[in-house]
């Protein structure tokens, strides 16, 4: 049986989630990879096991389902796995100005970006309490900090994760559980692949570092936050944005 710490990453099949899973595997974590697409998850699993010699488990599920967290954690119980790190990375972005924001846009983003983060965290806490140690990393966004035109629901959910991070860090700290959030800026991932070159250039010039971010930039921070090097860090919202906010 492996003695590696176990990290569960949602949205692990691509983009930030895949990069975070890769970094955590590099740092010696076994992984539970959760996302909708089993084929993509399996590819990530095979790659990480081959490259880093860690053990990985995959679980494909639509995280918008009301009982998604229960299904995930029932799977962990069946596999007799107690996780050490939860990365609430999965999220969707459906842009619309407020007057064109449909109920479906509201419900879809609330379900995945917020509700499931809450239910996954609620379930994970039981694992962490047993060990008196644990780490939750929530994926917020620069939009959650600063707002974004045409992103009312997305911004609201990502801002909610900030409040959640602050609250859980206070509530769970006495039990040795750290809770932090990462607020990525404009990153070159699948989520931003639909934007054109002119938009990307505008965003690049808006950063003080004059460059766009990569998934690996976020993954490095996640790897640090999950490690004992961050043992005195909790309740923080850390931007990875090239200075986009300043």
């Amino acid at each position: 049986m492996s003695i590696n710490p176990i990290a569960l990453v949602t949205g692990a099949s691509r983009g930030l989630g895949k990069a975070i899973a890769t970094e955590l595997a590099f740092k010696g974590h076994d992984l539970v990879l959760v996302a909708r697409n089993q084929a993509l998850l399996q590819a990530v699993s095979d790659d990480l096991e081959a490259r880093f010699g860690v053990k990985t488990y995959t679980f494909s599920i639509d995280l918008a389902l009301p009982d998604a967290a229960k299904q995930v954690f029932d799977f962990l119980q069946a596999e007799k796995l107690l996780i050490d790190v939860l990365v609430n990375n999965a999220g969707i972005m459906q842009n619309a100005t407020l007057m064109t924001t449909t109920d479906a846009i509201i419900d879809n983003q609330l379900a995945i970006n917020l509700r499931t983060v809450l239910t996954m965290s609620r379930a994970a806490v039981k694992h962490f309490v047993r060990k008196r140690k644990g780490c939750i990393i929530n994926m917020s966004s620069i939009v959650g900090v600063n707002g974004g035109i045409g992103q009312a629901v997305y911004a609201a959910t990502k801002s909610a994760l900030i409040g959640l991070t602050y609250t859980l860090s206070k509530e769970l700290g006495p039990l040795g559980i750290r809770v932090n959030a990462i607020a990525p800026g404009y990153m070159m991932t699948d989520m931003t692949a639909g934007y054109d070159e002119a938009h990307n250039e505008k965003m690049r010039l808006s950063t003080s570092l004059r460059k766009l971010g990569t998934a690996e930039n976020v993954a490095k921070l996640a790897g640090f936050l999950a490690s004992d090097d961050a043992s005195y860090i909790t309740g923080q919202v850390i931007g990875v944005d090239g200075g986009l906010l300043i």
Partner: protein
Amino acid sequence: MNAQEKLIHAFSDALMIEKEAVVDSLAYQSIPNWDSISHMILITNLEAEFDISISTDDVIGMSSVGKAKEILQSLGVSFD
């Protein structure tokens, strides 16, 4: 250990009280040691002792030692 002993051990450990203090009438927040923090520890202790999963509704409903027994019995634990 039988079920009663496991129950007492779970409560005693989580609440950091003497085993003799674990009686059916002991209620949540009736003593300083049974607060929201120790309640979380209690839930995970019971799940580990009895190899069960306690739902959120039952976490909320576990308002006393006696109530804990009822919940455990509903989850298949026998105190006979």
